[in-house]
């Protein structure tokens, strides 16, 4: 049924578009790589088949009378109506069918909701518009953001102005790639504690059949036990503001050995970075260095809201060009960036960025787009504000 329908649809599709279908889009739910995802898929298929059969019967009867009981064929209307027997039958049969559907569904659901006895716990926190992963069993946490460059998705010029610089060609994993994927071991029950820092997000990895809303102030639990190593891609699936479409998820499932190796490496790197931060405090960076790093950091972390040209979106995100804060007291500026503004979309970046990046991005904001304060903010300045001095 499924197959005939989908091929049936691809014919007009071919005609309409004129090019060959990019055949890599699956036409059905993924079977996935966990037992649960497989069971969910089976459930989905069974219900679909049942619906198709009911559809065949109902529409069959209908088309039969459309073809045979039409006036142009001389059909005379019968006068029968109301039959309790018939009515009871067509109430009872669907009821029985529903029970037949509900029983396996209940079974799968109970299995999904059994969060006990996990081997590993990871806290997943959504915020506009990135994911934060924190391993409970190791000293490791990091942010994960979209890796597709802006120049690949902003095509505004390309369509109206053929002379304008064409957007970059889109990569293979366009909009489904991140800078730092989540890594988990296979064959282990990994528990996800899903929550949010601001609005509601939803963490969905189709191959695991895990979709769990990230509600601010609450922690929801979900789990996955992956059978096959690989790279699995998902999306944020709850409307979470402007860049809801740009909040992908990538999970890499590794064998236990490789996973352990990865963890050890990451933990070491993070420890080293922390040590380097301390060294930074005594160092002075040149303004040019700061501006260069600042621009990169700005485009990666801030431009989503404040826009690459620093003008913000009026009424939604304030512009930083000519903003009193970016032109005014440095301490205040650092404070806003490090701690955010409570109750607004401006989150605290103190946790997300290193001291060097913070210093750089603040320097950048104070000198770019004609702000020209001439200030060069150093890591030590940022550290001072962080420590509350």
């Amino acid at each position, binding site marked *: 049924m499924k197959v005939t329908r989908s091929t049936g649809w691809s014919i*007009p599709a071919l005609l309409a578009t004129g090019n060959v279908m990019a055949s890599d889009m699956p036409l*059905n739910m993924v079977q996935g790589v966990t037992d649960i995802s497989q069971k*969910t898929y089976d459930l989905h298929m069974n219900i679909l088949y049942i619906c198709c059969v009911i559809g065949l019967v109902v529409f069959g009867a209908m088309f039969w009378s459309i073809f045979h009981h039409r006036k142009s064929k001389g059909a005379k209307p019968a006068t029968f109506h*109301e039959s309790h027997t018939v009515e009871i039958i067509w109430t009872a049969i669907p009821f029985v069918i529903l029970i037949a559907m509900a029983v396996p569904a209940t079974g799968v659901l109970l299995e999904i909701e059994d969060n006990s006895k996990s081997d590993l716990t990871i806290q997943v926190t959504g915020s506009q518009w990135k994911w934060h992963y924190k391993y409970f069993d190791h000293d490791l946490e990091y942010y994960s953001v979209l890796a597709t460059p802006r120049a690949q998705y902003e095509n505004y010029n390309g369509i109206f102005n053929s002379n304008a610089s064409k957007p970059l060609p889109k990569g293979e994993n*366009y909009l489904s790639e991140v800078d730092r994927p989540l890594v988990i071991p296979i064959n282990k029950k990994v528990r996800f504690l899903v929550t949010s820092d601001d*609005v509601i997000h939803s963490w*969905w990895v189709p191959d695991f059949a895990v979709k769990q809303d990230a509600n601010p102030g609450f922690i929801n639990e979900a789990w996955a036990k992956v059978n096959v190593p690989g790279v699995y891609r998902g999306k944020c*699936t709850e409307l979470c503001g402007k*860049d809801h479409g740009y909040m992908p998820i990538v999970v890499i499932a590794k064998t236990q050995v490789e996973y352990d190796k990865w963890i050890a490496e990451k933990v070491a790197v993070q420890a080293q970075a922390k040590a380097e931060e301390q060294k930074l405090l005594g160092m002075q960076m040149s303004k040019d260095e700061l501006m260069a790093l600042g621009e990169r950091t700005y485009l990666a972390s801030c431009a989503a809201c404040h826009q690459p040209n620093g003008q913000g979106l009026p009424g*939604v995100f304030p512009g930083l060009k000519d903003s009193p804060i970016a032109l005014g007291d440095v301490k205040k500026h650092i404070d806003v960036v490090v701690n955010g503004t409570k109750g607004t979309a401006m989150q605290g970046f103190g946790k997300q960025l290193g001291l060097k990046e913070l210093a750089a991005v603040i320097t950048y904001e104070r000198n770019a787009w004609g702000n020209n304060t001439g200030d060069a903010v150093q890591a030590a300045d940022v550290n001072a504000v962080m420590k509350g001095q």
Partner: protein
Amino acid sequence: MSTMTDTHDDHDDHDHKPTGITRWLYTTNHKDIGTMYLWFSFTMFLIGGFMAMIIRAELYQPGLQIIDPNFFNQMTTVHGLIMVFGAVMPAFVGLANWLIPMMIGAPDMALPRMNNWSFWILPFAFSILLASLFMEGGGPNFGWTFYAPLSTTYSNDSTAFFIFSVHIMGMSSIMGAINVIVTIFNMRAPGMTFMKMPLFVWTWLITAFLLIAVMPVLAGTVTMMLTDKYFGTSFFDAAGGGDPVMFQHIFWFFGHPEVYIMILPAFGIVSEIIPTFARKRLFGYSSMVYATSSIALLSFIVWAHHMLTTGMPVAAELFFMYATMLISVPTGVKVFNWVATMWKGSMTFETPMLFALAFVILFTIGGFSGLMLAITPADFQYHDTYFVVAHFHYVLVTGAIFSIMAAAYYWLPKWTGHMYDEKLGKTHFWCSLISVNVLFFPMHFVGLAGMPRRIPDYALQFADFNKIISIGGFAFGLSQLIFLAVVIKCIRGGEKATDRVWEGATGLEWEIPSPAPYHTFSTPPEIK
């Protein structure tokens, strides 16, 4: 203002209409008000459809071409709001206004001045909503479901305009519904017992009850939103002991009955049309009445099937799954009834019948996908993907909108006194039927393949299907212009319609002349 004019005695002998603009501004006539509702609704359909065209144009290919993501969200949101509150609901209220008094042998609605008020609130409310798109920071951009805290702490300044305009839209709906209920309870002609009422009247009675029960809850929801955003309350803020999910519970307690508000009158329309063109009595009148009531009652206890991924306790997930599945039973009774009515009938296929038949099939397909969504574990995969978008457009566009089209064709001759252009009508039907499926059917696949809703841009593997969907969308949009042409042509002239119009039509509205006189029954007709 003419306080004590001559309404009392002499309008059954001369059928005079007031003239000029005040005819429409001050009217108490159910037919005029019905007409205004219908035109208003159609205008909103065009505006909401235009927004859908912007959405489809942006999604035509991957990448951001035309609009930025923030505006895209506004389009999605306002498209949903306009279609639901501006197109479908007012269309049904318009039909109710035109038809219910004629069907039950009443001279007008029970509370004609309030009726006028209900209508005139709408243009103002929707102008405010639309105008907010042009404010600094843009209009509502948090989805038609406006989940907190995106719609509270994180929303833009126009939110207040959105909230208050929803308040007055709600007032309008409540007053409209009160009017319908009171008309049906109190204005039936002698002999028109409840179980003799046409099904359209029955379904509207139940719809009106749903409206009065849930629109105030919507008002409560937006009020809490208002105070959370502007006055520091913590309904939806965990830091103060509230819960963002509570918003969803209250919203969907309104929202789910709301979707049935958009389909029950459609059931009524189809139950009028099919017997007429099958020339056979409706198979089970009373079981239809009971089925409608059961759907309405069940609709109060299924709301959380929209929230299955919010992390509710498992007992709740099970309960809402079972309750939701149950709705298939009474809905099935309806579908089977329509089929049994056609069975061994003597069918002809004028445009209203074609739309009604398409309704039965396509609505049922939408119902099947609804049933699939109700299966909690499977919904974890479907939720917030285009599979859901496919589901609700099947029940809303090929359900509600198709039924409204069917109704328009069916009663146009009675309203205007002229037959519409059958050939053009059929063209409209076939164009719509084909394009609507090109538009919405592939959405099932895109959704299953993993494309989320409410995104302005997508991964490359969805590109081809989205292109097809968009093409279907443009074609469906253009097809609606044919409908506009049919209506205008029919108003301006055409073959004179007979009183009964359709050979198999039964009911009081077919006993009076076409076009229906400005004032119908000033003395109650007698129903045998």
